[in-house]
């Protein structure tokens, strides 16, 4: 028995998939039982709440998992704070990082007869059918944070960040630093996500156009600080010189900085390496305030007030001026940031 029973490794995936289904089925069955119980208890406590809820606007909100990142946590908090009964909403939430699960949630909301479907899609494709169903059922769809590849007529409005612009703002800022040579470690987010594409695109263009802009390495760390640390560690071990870290989110910038600290490479305002991050987490802005980092680009997670405004307009029967609403976003420079900025824009 000295050798490996190799086939069991082969079966890991298969088994996981298979059993996942079984377990899922069991969980689904359980949740169904519970939801039936919940329905039962609701109908018991009577008509008074029913008549009350009739003038509430019913919204179904489909979002990504709030644990995904600080951005998402802030976004979810913002949504939960806005869509309350006090503000005239009856909101239900569904979370998933997977498109198919989100679509299932959307179908459920359509059956429940919500008035509005608010959607931050995990993936851009595959939404046509379900949005058509929503349209047929008279449900209005508002996209937030992420766009989808579907006909514009299928949704009322889309409130998004302009990731391309975020990238451009950052690259322009970097250019304004006037370095003689730019040797950049570029740490990317999950490949194919809108944030990655926008933030990468601007930098790629610039590197292509300028002869003194070089990419030392361009790697995806999948928004993961540990991976970013390993990537930067690898460059340091190699002994290659660099003077800019362009990380596509704060977590990865933090990982990169951890590697720099270990190798005694100074970073921040007036130091050897310029550190750039995105998303404006509060702790990241504090790093800016302490001059340990140089730049942080905002990715505004506070869409709820925009959505609220749009719903109010639609309810009043008004027409929307624009289908796509682009949120205002800033970039912060360590030399000009104030404590007030940290408190207002930190997430």
């Amino acid at each position, binding site marked *: *028995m*000295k*050798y*490996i*029973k*190799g*086939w*069991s*490794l*082969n079966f*890991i995936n298969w*088994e*996981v998939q298979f*059993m*996942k289904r*079984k*377990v899922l089925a069991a969980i689904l069955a359980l949740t169904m039982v519970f939801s039936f119980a919940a329905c039962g208890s609701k109908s018991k406590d009577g008509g008074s709440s029913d008549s009350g809820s009739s003038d509430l606007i019913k919204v179904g909100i489909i979002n990504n*998992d*709030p*644990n*995904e*990142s*600080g951005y998402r*946590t802030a976004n979810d908090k913002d949504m939960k704070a806005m869509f309350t009964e006090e503000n005239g909403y009856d909101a239900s939430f569904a979370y998933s990082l997977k498109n198919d699960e989100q679509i299932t949630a959307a179908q459920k909301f359509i059956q429940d007869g919500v008035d509005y479907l608010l959607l931050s899609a995990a993936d851009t494709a595959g939404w046509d059918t379900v949005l058509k169903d929503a349209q047929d059922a008279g449900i209005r769809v508002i996209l937030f944070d992420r766009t989808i590849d579907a006909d514009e007529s299928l949704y009322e409005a889309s409130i998004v960040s302009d990731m391309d612009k975020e990238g451009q703002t950052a690259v322009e800022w970097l250019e304004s630093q006037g370095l003689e040579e730019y040797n950049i470690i570029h740490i990317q987010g999950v*490949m194919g996500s809108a944030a990655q594409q926008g933030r990468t695109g601007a930098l790629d263009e610039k590197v292509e156009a300028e002869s003194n802009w070089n990419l030392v*390495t361009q*790697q*995806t*760390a*999948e*928004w*993961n*600080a*540990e*991976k970013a*640390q*390993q*990537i930067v*560690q*690898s460059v*340091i*071990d*190699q*002994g290659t010189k660099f003077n800019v870290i362009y990380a596509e989110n704060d*977590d990865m910038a*933090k*990982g990169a900085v*951890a590697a720099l*600290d*270990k*190798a*005694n*490479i*100074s970073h921040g305002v007036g130091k050897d390496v310029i550190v750039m991050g995105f998303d404006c*987490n509060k*702790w990241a802005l504090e790093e800016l305030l302490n001059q340990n980092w140089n730049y942080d680009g905002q990715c505004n997670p506070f869409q709820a007030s925009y959505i609220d405004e749009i719903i109010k307009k639609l309810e009043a029967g008004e027409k929307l001026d624009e289908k796509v609403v682009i949120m205002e976003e800033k970039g912060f420079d360590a030399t000009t940031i104030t404590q007030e900025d940290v408190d207002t824009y930190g997430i």
Partner: protein
Amino acid sequence: MENTAVKKSKGSDFLGKLLRQQLFIPVAALLILAIFNLIADPSFFKITLGYSSAGQPVLSGYLITILDYGSELAILAIGMTLVTAASGGQDISVGATIAIAGSVILRVLCGTDSRPETLQTSFLVAFLVACVVSMLFGAFNGILVAYFKIQPMVATLILYTAGRSIAAWINNNELPIISDPTFAYFGGFIPGIPIPTPFFIAMACVIVIALVLKFTNLGLYTQAVGINEKSSRLNGINPKFIKFLSFVILGLCVAVVGLIKVSRLSSINYSVIAKDIEMDAILAVALGGNALSGGKFNMAASILGAYVIQFLTTTLYKFDVQSDALPAYKAVVVILLVVLSAPSVRQKLSGLGKKLRVKEVA
């Protein structure tokens, strides 16, 4: 003429013995990787002594990086080997329970304030609480496997799915950050010592498990249960308890790795911390030549296997392989291992060896 023939057959005997040695697989893999790097770029082996930003001496270089990150894996490989040997299955919830252990450490240190000025307790207390918690989660897995006889992969699937949400819930979805620089020692360097701390932690774990295996019956009992549960019970061993114990020990290993992981960044990200680490840990056990279906095991081979995997990862990073393509390369290793260790291939190989020997003698 005769003399050389005898020598040759002795040589092939030695080779045969070597091939049968369990340590052969990880050592051979390590040698292949080392030679590959030596040819491609000898600077891979360069180690330089520098000074950290705090002015302390630190060694740096690829080999140090391997020691640093491989140590986490080595600690996990210890627990995973025991679980594999006793239960004939693997724990796939390791990454998720690392998130839980890390979250507990930060929760105990920070209290409810996610940006504390002063820490609530000492690191030791926080670590001990994390040990208890992750041993409890290990016990949960162990009970499902040993007493409810659920397949290990399925039993641990529960925490694999739920663990990261539990970790987030422990800290109310906040992302605590510890500003005390001494907390970073566990995943970095202790002032004055130029070798990364995780390596020392791993060595401590290795020594502890070596002593345990030498002076207790744990190793013997674990193998007995893994080879034949029924006969081990007839011989007075309680197989359920042994299986249960192996999961609890893995829980302890998880807590140690959790400490290193959160210390590296003085913070945590629930959804990505220690992501997919369970697959690397299982691969380490496999690379160590241990039967994934349980039974006999060789702890040293597993631990070496862990460092070999990190060696591979670091090599791939060095050659600028896209990091999202890393799993594909690891898959190639798995395929090679699986094919080479398949009984039919082994038979053919040994048949080939015999033929060669016969020819030599003739």
